């Protein structure tokens, strides 16, 4: 194990532990950014350049911003003054310690794990693109569909769906126009949804 690996691993693990244990949620999100960037550095150490930079783009760039947005939108950016851990937290810590012990024991005692690194494979973007367009084209399409559905679903879930207030003029107007002219029912529906955003 090289010294850079040990340093990056310590930074990553320390930042992950901080992200899970700090009181203020904004500090947690920033520690999470450090942990994810450390993971990207670990990927670069393991000669997976494309994955490392994808990790930085997706996690450090997008997911961390999403989490900060969620922290601010749910107004949990102030330091909470009640307990931050759920009542049964000792059981949770014990379960995760048991999980770590099991995984660590398996990693240290498995026979037949390769001892040294084989020569670095040629994992260029061209090779990855070739594979994505030939052997993995079906999973790629499925992932594209999944991402589209998930993002549309996220927008619909997070959209404010309460109807406009009874006093608002727009709803009343649309309602009366629907009564007078039945062909405008479609307009009423779209107007109501549009007013809800």
């Amino acid at each position, binding site marked *: 194990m090289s010294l850079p690996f040990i340093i990056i691993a310590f930074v990553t693990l320390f930042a992950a*532990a901080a992200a899970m244990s700090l009181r203020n949620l904004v500090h947690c999100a920033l520690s999470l950014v450090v942990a994810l960037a450390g993971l990207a550095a670990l990927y670069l150490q393991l000669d997976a350049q494309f994955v490392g930079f994808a990790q930085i783009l997706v*996690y450090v760039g997008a*997911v961390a911003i999403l989490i900060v947005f969620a922290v601010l939108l749910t107004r949990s950016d102030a330091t909470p003054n009640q307990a931050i851990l759920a009542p049964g937290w000792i059981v949770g810590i014990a379960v995760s310690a048991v999980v*770590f012990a099991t995984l660590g024991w398996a990693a240290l005692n498995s026979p037949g794990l390769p001892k040294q690194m084989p020569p670095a494979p040629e994992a260029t973007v061209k090779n990855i693109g070739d594979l994505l367009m030939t052997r993995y084209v079906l999973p790629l399409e499925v*992932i594209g569909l999944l991402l589209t559905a998930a993002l549309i679903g996220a927008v619909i*879930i997070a959209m404010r769906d309460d109807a406009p207030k009874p006093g608002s003029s727009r709803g009343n107007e649309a309602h009366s126009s629907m009564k007078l002219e039945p062909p405008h029912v479609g307009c009423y529906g779209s107007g109501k949804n549009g007013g809800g955003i």
Partner: protein
Amino acid sequence: MTPLQGCLLVSALLFAIGLAGAVTRRNAILALVGIELMLNAANLNFIAFWRYGPHPEALTGMMVVIFSIAIAAAEAAVGLALIIAIYRHYKTANLDEMKNLKG
């Protein structure tokens, strides 16, 4: 300890940290962050086994990680949208106070 075992230990510890956070923290966003950490630990395992495995030129582990990152992004988007929708209803992001399934 071989380098592969070092990677596996790091990812096991990362998984345990994420699990502990997801199970014990009261805030829903932190639970989601813990799940993200667990996903990342699994990704690190895939990359480590790909790099030290017998056929790294097939790029299988790397492909799994690329797809897994895409799925994790979708999961984060949907999860945070759910948290925001729940916050709008209950006016809290505290998991202990979300007791009713029916609005």
